[in-house]
Structures are given as C-alpha cells and as structure tokens.
C-alpha cells in the first residue's frame, strides 16, 4: 500500500510536469505569434504567471471553492450518525485523521473527496446516495473516497484540474483575440515591412493549431490517469472494507439510478466523483479516450470477481481476469498479503424494503436545521427552523409537544 502511494506521487509529479510543458509551450507559441520571435519569453512569463496564481488559489482554498460550488453543507454527527460513523470507521481503517464530512443537496447519487493533504481532507456525499445505499454499500463508497485521500489523489486532481483550467483559459483568450483583434495586429505588422509578413502568418497558424491541440492534449493526459486512479481507489476500498461486494452493489445501484444528473458538476470536477456525474441513458458503457471513469459495469465485474481475498493483489488478479488486459497496478505494490474477505453485515443480508426517496428529503431537512419530533402515536413531526411558536400539536392525536431548538 505504501509502495502504491509512493508510485502514485511520482506519477503525479510526472503528469503535472507534462501538463506544465503543454501550458508553457502554449504560452511561448502564442507570445511569438503576437509579438514576433522575441515575444516567446513574454508569453512564457504570462503563462507561468497564470499558472502560479491559480495554483496558489487552489492551494489556499481550492477545496472550499469546490465544496461551495457543489452546494455542499458541512454536517456534524447529529445530522446523519450513520454517515459520520462510516467515515470514521474508514478513516480508522486507513490510519488517517478524520476528514470533514459534507452532504450535497442533490438527489443524484454520487460522492467525492477533496483537500490538500490527508490532514485537511473533506468527504462529500449527495443526499441521494444516503437515501439509496445500505450501510455496507455506503462503507464501500466512503472506502473508495478514503482511498483517494490515502493515495494522495485529491491533491493531484486539484492541481491537474487547475493546470487544465489554465491551458483552457489561455487558449480561449488567444483564439478569441485572434478572431476579433486580428485586423489591428495585421496593420501593425505591415507597417514594419514586407519581409516579416510571411513568417508571422506561419507562426500565427502554428499558434492557432497549438492553441486548439494543447487543451485536448492536457485533457487526455488528465483523463488517462484519472481512470487508472478509479481502479486503484476501488482496490483500496476493497482492501479497507474487506468486503468488495459492498462497493460493487453500491455501484450497481448508482448505475441503475433514474435520478437526473448531478446539477453542480462540471468538466473539471468530473474526475473527482466516484462515478462520472455526466450520464445519459444508455451511456454508462461508453469507454473511450475522453471518459474520466472506467465503465461502471466493468468495475462491478472486477469487484465481484475477487473471490480469493481483499488484498491489492487479489484485485489485480480479478482485473486481469475480467478485462483480459495488463494490470493497472504497479508490480512492486503487489506484495503478497493474506487478507480474508468478511461477511455481509446483517442489515444487508436481510435487506429491508428499499429506502424511500422520502428519506432523501429528510436528510436535507436535517442538514437545513429542521427539528424532528416523534410523537407517541408514531407520527414524525418535521419542524422547519423558522417555526416561531414554542409548541406544536400533533395532527393525528392532538398531543401538544414542546419545540426546543438547541
């Protein structure tokens, strides 16, 4: 496991360097296209400047921006004891400090983790996820997110996302600039003399091509590694929970879900989620260069193929079995570990009636400060935070309850 973390860190640095080359190359080419050959340095400096500023912002408050943009609310133990407990269980299993817990107000089932390092990490799940999964399944999903934290994927995703954003920003600004400002610069360069005209146009064409290709290149790099990391996080989840079926059945429920797609996700944040938040009916099996996640059916089949044990090696063997391709695991991380699978907890064994969508609403009410009172007659009263009176009458048995809001 520690070997895996080390390799992951090295890969992250390599990938970020490759993306930096894309960014700086783009800056230099744009600079040369606008200001002639000596403009390359200037372009390089501007590109570096954009990157440094964005990286500083993401380092200082990237996770906060992301959580706010996802409509996530920080919750305490009282709001959803089970979620809180499951996160604590997984943090103990991973030997990490307890992350902050967030609930996203959205019916689509999904989850993500973010933060700079394990000490400042956050785990966010949607209300839709909490409403649909049983304890074992929730544990599988949280185990997946905890593995992202353990493998230091969270910092990588933030930094790579920022890099992607910088490249996209730079190329957008340049392409629009050439479209609208092209006329004025041509006048300027024709004033200089006739000799430079041809070279300048060639440079300009090269710059436009680079400006179009660079964002695609960085995106492909980004997606390639994020797909791999999803497999590794699945393996980590199986190892932490000792129960791959939990995550497999959670993924199955998520895949078969009919709720509308997550409202607050965008292209940059998509790789952070446990399943791709952009879904269209029948598109779950789509696997191509541009998808951020491996096909969900394949992930489920690999997890269900782990019959021998729950170690990384067992996941790797199952992966080879299912995909008939080379393992995604670095060979040195596959030390022989004897890790037995555990049984399902009782809740999953005699799975009670499917949790109702109403529960999703209840979770959000708790997050938003509703007070829940259970009357002796069995009615649950849900009192909104702006309810002013000190008492409330039960609509069924007319008992009067005191509303004491803490």
């Amino acid at each position, binding site marked *: 496991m520690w070997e895996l973390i080390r390799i992951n860190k090295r890969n992250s640095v390599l990938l970020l360097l490759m993306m930096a080359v894309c960014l700086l190359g783009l800056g230099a080419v744009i600079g040369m296209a606008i200001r002639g050959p000596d403009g390359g340095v200037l372009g390089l400096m501007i590109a570096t400047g954009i990157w440094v500023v964005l990286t500083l912002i993401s380092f200082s408050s990237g996770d906060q921006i992301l959580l706010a943009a996802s409509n996530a609310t920080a919750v305490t133990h009282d709001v959803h004891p089970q979620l809180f407990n499951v996160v604590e269980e997984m943090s103990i299993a991973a*030997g990490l400090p307890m992350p902050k817990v967030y609930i996203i107000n959205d019916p689509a089932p999904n989850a993500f983790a973010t933060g700079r390092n394990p000490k400042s990490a956050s785990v966010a799940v949607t209300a839709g996820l909490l409403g649909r999964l049983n304890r074992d399944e929730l544990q599988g999903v949280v185990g997946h997110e905890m593995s992202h934290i353990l493998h230091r994927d969270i910092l990588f995703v933030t930094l790579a996302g920022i890099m992607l954003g910088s490249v996209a920003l730079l190329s957008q600004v340049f392409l629009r600039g050439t479209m609208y400002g092209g006329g004025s610069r041509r006048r300027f360069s024709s004033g200089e003399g006739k000799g430079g005209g041809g070279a300048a146009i060639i440079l300009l064409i090269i710059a436009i091509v680079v400006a179009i290709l660079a964002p695609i290149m960085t995106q492909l790099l980004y997606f390639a590694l994020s797909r791999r990391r999803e497999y590794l996080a699945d393996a980590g989840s199986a190892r932490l929970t000792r129960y791959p079926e939990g995550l497999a059945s959670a993924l199955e429920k998520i895949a078969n879900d009919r709720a509308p797609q997550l409202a607050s996700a965008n292209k940059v944040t998509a790789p952070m989620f446990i399943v791709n938040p952009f879904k269209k009916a029948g598109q779950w099996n789509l696997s191509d260069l541009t998808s951020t996640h491996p096909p969900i059916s394949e992930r489920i089949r690999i997890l269900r193929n782990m019959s021998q044990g729950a170690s990384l090696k067992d996941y790797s063997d199952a992966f080879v079995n299912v995909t008939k391709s080379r393992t995604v695991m670095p060979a040195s991380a596959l030390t022989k570990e004897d890790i037995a699978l555990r049984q399902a907890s009782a809740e999953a064994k005699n799975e009670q009636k499917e949790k109702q969508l109403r529960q999703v609403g209840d979770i959000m009410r708790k997050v938003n400060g509703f007070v829940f009172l259970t009357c002796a007659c069995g009615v649950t009263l849900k009192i909104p935070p702006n309810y002013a009176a000190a008492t409330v009458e039960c609509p069924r048995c007319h008992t009067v309850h005191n509303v004491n809001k803490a």
Partner: protein
Amino acid sequence: MGIGMIALIVLLVIAAGLLLVILYVIGTYNVFVGLRNQVDNAWSQIDVQLKRRHDLIPNLVETAKGYMQHERGTFEAVTNARAQAMGAKTVADAAKAEGALGDALSKFMLVVENYPDLKANQNFLALQEELSSTENKIAFARQAYNDQAMFFNNRIQMFPSNIVAGIFSFTKRDFFEVSAAAEREAPKVSF
C-alpha cells in the same frame, strides 16, 4: 606533490562515503521513529474504541430495561462481561474479556429482536447504530494496527535498514490476533 594530492583525494572520498552513511543512518532512524509512532497510534486507537464500547453499554441497557422486564439474565450477562472487561489487567485477559463481552452483546441483540416496540424506539436505534459502528471501529482499528505492524516489521527485517534497526534496537511488534473464533464473529451482531 603527486602523493599528497592522491592522499587528499582518498581522504575526501572516504569522508564523502562516511557522510553518506551517516545521512542514511539518520534518515532511516527517523523513518523508524515515524513508523513506530504510527504503530503505537494504531494500537491506542483500539483502546479508544474498546473504552467507547464500555461507555455505550450502560445507556443501551438502561434504554432497553423499560421494554424487556423479563430478560434479567441477559442484562446481567452483559453488565458482568463489561465489568470484567474493564477490570482486566493483562493484554491476554483483556482480549479474552472483550471476546466474552462481544458474545454477551450479540446474545442481547438477538433477544432484542423479540421486542418490536424497543426496535422502534428512536433512542434505542441511535444507540444501536453507535454500538454497531463501535464494533466496526474496533475491527478496523485492529486491521490498521496489523497493517502498520507488518510494514514496520518488514523494514526491521530487510537489508540494509535492519542494521540501523539493530543499532537503535527497534524490535518487531506482535500482530493483534483474535484468539477465539467467537470474537471474530462479534461485529456481525444482527442489527
């Protein structure tokens, strides 16, 4: 001049080699200290969760008593097992007593199944969630301790870090094996 220069170069090479060795020893020593702290931390986490289980039981029994007047034997078994677990002095005693407590709790939870009123009690449900989570946390804390201990032990045995471990006498840690098969079953109480 020739001999003087050669002597100087040889001296420099030896000095550089010594410096590298010293740096390696310092680095490895620090790694070992960090690992040892992690192992100790994982160990203390088990204690934290066991204590939490002890703290939860009185509340659970108190809430259930009102509903289950005819189950005194079950209550006493749980209360006694808790007292024994809390009073255990040695690690071996503690492991045994905690195993017995787990058994008593799972019997208790089986009896609870016969009292639908109790199972509908919000307060009891909350305690049940806390207890089952604590059982899980105990299991995961053990798991984490064993993972950390294995990594620590591997470093102590492997060359060349085993030399450093020998000099500063870092010793291998025992795995936390669950003794009785019954205790292994404990977290699977039917909630």
